[in-house]
């Protein structure tokens, strides 16, 4: 059973508007969440993260929100730019759950930002 779910395989947004990518998780032991961005034929690159003790983390145009009670997190990109077009992966880990830090990934959401 999937522990990290990204239910939207794709998202299309106009340049300058907000992109909202969603992620749900089922394991309440997860205490650290990350977003990765991946271009074709390249490895994923780290974008932003949030610890379970926070509900928001912001870095420039990127903000991640965490709702622990709903086991839901979202990535907001404002304003969206054509260069943001990529596949975005949500990932989670359970640092204190004995997982040794391995990340569990969702299936990804392909974001297309149209000029």
């Amino acid at each position: 059973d999937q522990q990290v779910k990204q239910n939207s395989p794709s998202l299309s947004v106009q340049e300058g508007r907000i992109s909202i990518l969603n992620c749900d998780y089922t394991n309440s032991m997860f205490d650290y969440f990350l977003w990765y961005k991946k271009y074709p034929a390249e490895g994923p690159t780290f974008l932003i993260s949030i610890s379970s003790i926070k509900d928001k983390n912001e870095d420039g145009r990127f903000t991640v929100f965490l709702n622990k009670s709903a086991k839901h997190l979202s990535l907001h990109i404002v304003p969206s730019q054509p260069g943001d077009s990529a596949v975005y992966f949500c990932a989670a880990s359970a640092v204190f759950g004995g997982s040794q830090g391995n990340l569990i990934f969702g299936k990804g959401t392909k974001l297309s930002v149209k000029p």
Partner: protein
Amino acid sequence: DVKVTQSSRYLVKRTGEKVFLECVQDMDHENMFWYRQDPGLGLRLIYFSYDVKMKEKGDIPEGYSVSREKKERFSLILESASTNQTSMYLCASSLLPTGPGNTEAFFGQGTRLTVV
């Protein structure tokens, strides 16, 4: 600048061949991982290692083995390649977590393996 290097960007192998994928990191990270990425399936963990000579199975270890003889190097081995192992293979490394906030994994550029 952190670096995870995979030995090949593209590989084409024949069914039944033994295939070695090599990965080297220069960050003195304890953890190393092998994932495969397939369309619609995301990144799936094959094996990971949290120390030299230590290995743990991930979600899809069947048909694969790994080797970690040195801290900086983690090898993925396809014992007898099959066409369903055609995929993008991604190596990653991270620190052994001591608390929330330091489990960011750094990825290599990926190896696109085609088994014919």
